[in-house]
């Protein structure tokens, strides 16, 4: 069964540094998402991406964050200047479209981001 893959599985970065988290969504999917989960808390939506542009973003997704689909397969999340509170598990998800019916989102296993 096709999977969403994320790299790296664990990223350790100094505060203030830039970090890029990478995702390869399922190949025929059209919607892409980033979520984060701070330890012990719920999974929170960050941003959705469709047709090469952001379709929705949450309050968490401020100017420090950006997303990109640089080629036909990768989907990246960049944090420009990391803060201690950015430490979390970051999940990428993707979703296809079949007619008008809603489909589930398929999640990767995440990148654990630790900011020192």
């Amino acid at each position, binding site marked *: 069964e096709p999977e969403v893959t994320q790299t790296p599985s664990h990223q350790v970065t100094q505060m203030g540094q830039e970090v890029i988290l990478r995702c390869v969504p399922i190949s025929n999917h059209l919607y892409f998402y980033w979520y984060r989960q701070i330890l012990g808390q719920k999974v929170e939506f960050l941003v959705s991406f469709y047709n090469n542009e952001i379709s929705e973003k949450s309050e968490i997704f401020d100017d420090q964050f950006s997303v990109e689909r640089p080629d036909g397969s990768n989907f990246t999340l960049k944090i420009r200047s990391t803060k201690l509170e950015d430490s979390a598990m970051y999940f990428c998800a993707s979703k296809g479209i079949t007619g008008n019916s809603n489909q589930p989102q398929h999640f990767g*296993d995440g990148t654990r981001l630790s900011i020192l």
Partner: protein
Amino acid sequence: SQKIEQNSEALNIQEGKTATLTCNYTNYSPAYLQWYRQDPGRGPVFLLLIRENEKEKRKERLKVTFDTTLKQSLFHITASQPADSATYLCAPTQGNSGYALNFGKGTSLLVTP
């Protein structure tokens, strides 16, 4: 503001029993509601989706109900097994196919032999 509440306490049940998990929502009119399973250190995995015009949905040992009057969904696992131990997340969702998922905090289920 929109709020999703799931059983905050962990649910411990014996193998073979039925587990029932609750999801309540307020200030929402979801067109459908999804349930996901999350294992420690892993991403959520989709289990079931139920639409607002469906009262009940089944898949193998899983059953979901959706009561839009009570603003509640119940998630049942019958004949539970230790392998069912995980955190279960609900996500009531509004509107069209692009919408982001807004998850509840989840209920931790532990099934003991």
